[in-house]
């Protein structure tokens, strides 16, 4: 039964206590996973910072050779890659998101705790892969956006780009799993009474960010897959001399890349929307408009990627469209800025370090936004492209907007996370040095850019007149480094302090995380809270939200001590058991990546075996696998839908974008081949039969599900065996088709048509193969009596995946085979 948050009895062990090293390695507690993200992100922050300092040292004076040009290129590439993929996203999503989502929505953990741990371990493996070039093969040096065809093996031989591409693929997989997990958690696991319009704004931002992750990352995945095919198998997806266009990479990359900016910015907006009301002692101004503006920003962010490509010559119509959407996105962003200012206006301000950083964010991010609007104008952008003006702009957005927010979040939530306060005095020094260092470093870049200094330039001549401002920037960078050093010292001092622990609610907070202990116990809440309005914890303390609640506070009313409506024994709370499989699985993935890069196929096979066995092991790890959850606390806001079903549908949604990227590439390239067989080679009778087989397998699949649901074990086995058989027949047909094409002279690398065809249809075939494997495992479970009515959900989930593979084939059959005579783009 739902209840008010219960003040925890004394001596409750916190999530940080117990378990030893093995406890941390096998943990699936969202808070411990968050802490592991923190440790890895702080390490990579130091590494990325070191790379930035090296860049600034190199630019200190004209014609400098403190670094070689090659090392300089590697450092600016790895600085961008590290800060975006290994620092900012892990901190915002992996650390703060992981730690706070269950606490702010009143849940005990995320929807898929083991998947959450897997996300972390994969992210760590990605970070290691990205940096293995330090040991062998050199660091990648083609920029964080790795423009084609610079990344082709002809132009960049060696292992460096391989490390980069495979590391990013693993990192992207980790992020997609995180997005899927967060979306499902926020949708399904909110405490009773927490409607969407009562969620903390940080939860709104993370929910929308998760959707953005699911629809943005597949484009990057496809772009990287094409790149790896070019590098490993000799295809020519980005090679102009083969009739292809490197512009394809730019489209795929920025289809991911611009939403990625908002994947970093939206959680920051959410955090600021938490910090400002707390320290202004006022509810967030314009809550509904803030929520809607987050949605609008996310939607528009998917339609602005072209403003990164004005210089490529997309044509006046496309330029105009992208300019309009880029300008439009300033409107909901402006709504947020004004709402924060209105929240502060008339508030009872407490000038803490967290609030300082929040105020700093508003100012610096607005400056970045203003230069961003300039980029929305194609003629102006053409002057600024690839200049230091762009470097200034995105650092004002990503450092001024996002890093300032991360610091605000640290000072705000650190007491909750660690049970210790961060030093305010040291914090103020940290803040002011950051403001000075940041503006000294990045503001002059606007001028340098307008004067013509190109970004990524290794050095410059003394006669260019850029020396003084560059020296100012380098001084600023060193001040920033000192500021970060103070931050690390503050953390160290806080953790090593013997002073009294932080109280549960040190800031007189508004949301539910402040209702539990600092640091929280493993189960978060003794009882799942009942939500009665926005700012749930504030209402419990002061009795009312909004301005009347403020009046109660301003009149000196002491916060009431919320009482539980019934005693609850914490021994009755069952948390999921730790699991070693996420760690082992991610190690398997890492070994596959390693084997691919060093070209050692035995290593790949070992990694693949470990990966597959871990997946199967995870599937059967819990005795109640595949059973419908009947625990009302498990997913109170799901409307009765199992969280696994929501998660799988989210994955399917993401796969739509994955296949759309593949299909569009096929359509673009199918008529651009310069030689060899074309679409006429496709065999319609054979694929019509394959289509029939796949459609009928879907029929058998639903019949298998119906048999399972009514407890008919005999027909359950028969229909499942039928689906597997039909799947194998389809795969056999595909093998026959590929073989016959090969015999007719059409191999993978023959021309653009063949490579885009084989990759598209091959990836679909790989999905079918995974489905066959999944269903085979279920069939074995059915044969050994481990399936049955109570585990119908297992069959339903596998069926959903199988039907999706079917509908993708419906599209492929039409667009690829039946429209073979229709010219491509």
């Amino acid at each position, binding site marked *: 039964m739902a209840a008010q948050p219960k003040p925890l009895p004394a001596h409750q062990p916190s999530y940080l206590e117990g378990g030893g090293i093995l406890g941390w390695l096998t943990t699936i507690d969202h808070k411990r996973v968050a802490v592991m993200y923190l440790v890895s992100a702080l390490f990579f922050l130091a590494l990325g910072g070191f790379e930035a300092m090296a860049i600034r040292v190199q630019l200190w004076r004209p014609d400098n050779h403190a670094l070689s040009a090659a090392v300089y290129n590697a450092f600016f590439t790895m600085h961008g890659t590290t800060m975006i993929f290994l620092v900012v996203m892990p901190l915002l999503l992996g650390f703060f998101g992981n730690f706070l989502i269950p606490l702010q929505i009143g849940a005990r953990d995320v929807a898929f705790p083991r998947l959450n741990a897997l996300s972390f371990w994969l992210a760590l493996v990605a970070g290691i892969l990205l940096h293995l070039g330090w040991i062998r093969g050199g660091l990648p040096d083609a920029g964080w956006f790795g423009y084609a065809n610079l990344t082709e093996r002809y132009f960049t031989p060696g292992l460096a780009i391989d490390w980069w591409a495979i590391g990013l693929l693993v990192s992207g997989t980790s992020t997609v799993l995180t997005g899927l997990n967060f979306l499902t958690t926020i949708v399904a696991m909110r405490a009773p009474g927490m409607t969407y319009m009562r969620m903390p704004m940080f939860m709104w931002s993370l929910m929308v960010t998760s*959707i953005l992750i*699911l*629809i943005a990352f597949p*484009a990057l995945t496809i772009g990287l897959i094409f790149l790896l095919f070019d590098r490993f198998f000799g295809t020519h997806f980005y090679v*102009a001399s083969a009739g292809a*266009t490197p*512009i394809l990479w730019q*489209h795929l990359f920025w289809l991911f890349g611009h939403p990625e900016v908002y994947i970093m910015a939206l959680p920051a907006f959410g955090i600021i929307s938490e910090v400002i009301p707390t320290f202004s002692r006022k509810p967030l101004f314009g809550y509904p408009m803030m929520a809607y503006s987050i949605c609008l920003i996310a939607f528009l962010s*998917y339609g602005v990627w072209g403003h990164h490509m004005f210089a490529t*010559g997309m*044509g006046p*119509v*496309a330029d105009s469209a992208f300019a309009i959407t880029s300008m439009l996105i300033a409107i909901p962003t402006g709504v947020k800025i004004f709402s924060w200012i209105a929240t502060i206006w008339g508030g009872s301000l407490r000038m803490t370090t967290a609030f300082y950083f929040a105020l700093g964010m508003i100012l610096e991010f607005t400056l970045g936004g203003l230069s961003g609007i300039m980029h929305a104008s194609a003629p102006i952008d053409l002057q600024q492209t690839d200049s230091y003006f762009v470097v200034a702009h995105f650092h004002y957005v990503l450092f001024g907007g996002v890093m300032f927010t991360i610091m605000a979040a640290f000072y705000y939530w650190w007491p909750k996370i660690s049970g210790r306060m961060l030093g305010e005095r040291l914090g103020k020094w940290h803040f002011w040095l950051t403001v000075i260092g940041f503006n000294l470093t990045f503001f002059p870049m606007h001028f340098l850019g307008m004067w013509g200094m190109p970004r990524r330039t290794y050095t410059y001549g003394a006669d260019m007149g850029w020396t003084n401002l560059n020296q100012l920037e380098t001084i600023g960078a060193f001040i920033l480094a000192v500021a970060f050093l103070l931050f690390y010292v503050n953390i160290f001092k806080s953790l090593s302090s013997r002073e009294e622990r932080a109280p549960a609610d040190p800031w007189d907070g508004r949301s539910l995380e402040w209702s539990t202990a600092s640091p929280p116990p493993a189960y978060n809440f003794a009882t799942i809270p009942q939500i009665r309005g926005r700012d749930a914890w504030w209402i419990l303390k002061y009795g009312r939200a909004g301005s009347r609640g403020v009046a109660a506070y301003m009149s000196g009313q002491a916060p009431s001590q919320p009482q539980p409506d019934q005693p609850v024994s914490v021994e009755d709370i069952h948390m999921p058991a730790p699991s070693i499989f996420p760690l082992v699985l991610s190690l398997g993935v890492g070994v596959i990546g390693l084997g691919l890069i060093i070209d050692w196929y035995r290593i790949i096979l070992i990694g693949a075996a470990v990966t597959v066995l871990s997946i199967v092991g995870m599937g059967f790890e819990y005795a109640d696998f595949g059973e*419908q959850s009947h625990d009302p606390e498990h997913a109170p806001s799901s*409307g*009765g*839908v*199992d969280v696994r*079903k*929501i998660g799988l*549908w*989210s994955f*399917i*949604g993401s796969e*739509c*974008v994955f*296949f*759309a990227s593949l299909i*569009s*590439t096929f*359509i*673009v390239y199918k008529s651009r081949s310069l030689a060899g067989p074309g679409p006429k080679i496709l065999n*319609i009778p054979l694929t*019509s039969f394959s289509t*029939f087989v796949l*459609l009928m397998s*879907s*029929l058998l699949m*639903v*019949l298998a*599900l*119906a048999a399972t*649901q009514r407890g008919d074990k005999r027909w359950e086995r028969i229909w499942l065996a039928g689906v597997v058989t039909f799947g194998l027949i389809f795969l056999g047909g595909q093998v026959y088709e590929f073989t016959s094409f090969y015999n007719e002279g059409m191999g993978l690398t023959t021309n653009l048509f063949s490579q885009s065809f084989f990759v598209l249809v091959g990836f679909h075939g790989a999905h079918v193969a995974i489905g066959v494997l999944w269903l085979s495992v279920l069939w074995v479970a059915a044969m050994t009596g481990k399936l049955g009515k109570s585990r*119908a*959900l297992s069959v*339903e989930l596998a*069926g*959903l995946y199988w*039907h*999706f593979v*079917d*509908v993708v084939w*419906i*599209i492929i059959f*039409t667009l690829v085979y*039946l*429209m073979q005579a*229709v010219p*491509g*783009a």
Partner: protein
Amino acid sequence: MSDIADAHDGQTHHPGAATYLIIAAFLVILTAMEVTVFYVHALHPVLVPLLIVLAAAKFALVVMFYMHLKYDQWLLTGVFIFPLIIATLLLVSLILLFAYLSNHMAPIG
């Protein structure tokens, strides 16, 4: 067997075998129509719209009846439809952008 079988979770109802068979029949007929359209030259002027409509119909039948979106909560429909719309927009946008590029790029060589 009843046409509407009780669902396992007590929240939604899935169709029974009869509905599944009818849908399968429709899917076969629609596929046969697609292949026919491909081979009948007289229909080639309207090949693209015809095939798109037929494929969309098959897609919708599988998603609505076999994947049960017609019977499940709207939440799941939303989780699927939004990315599907985005994916469709992406497909159309890239085709149009590259069509422009192809028409305006200098010939290779």
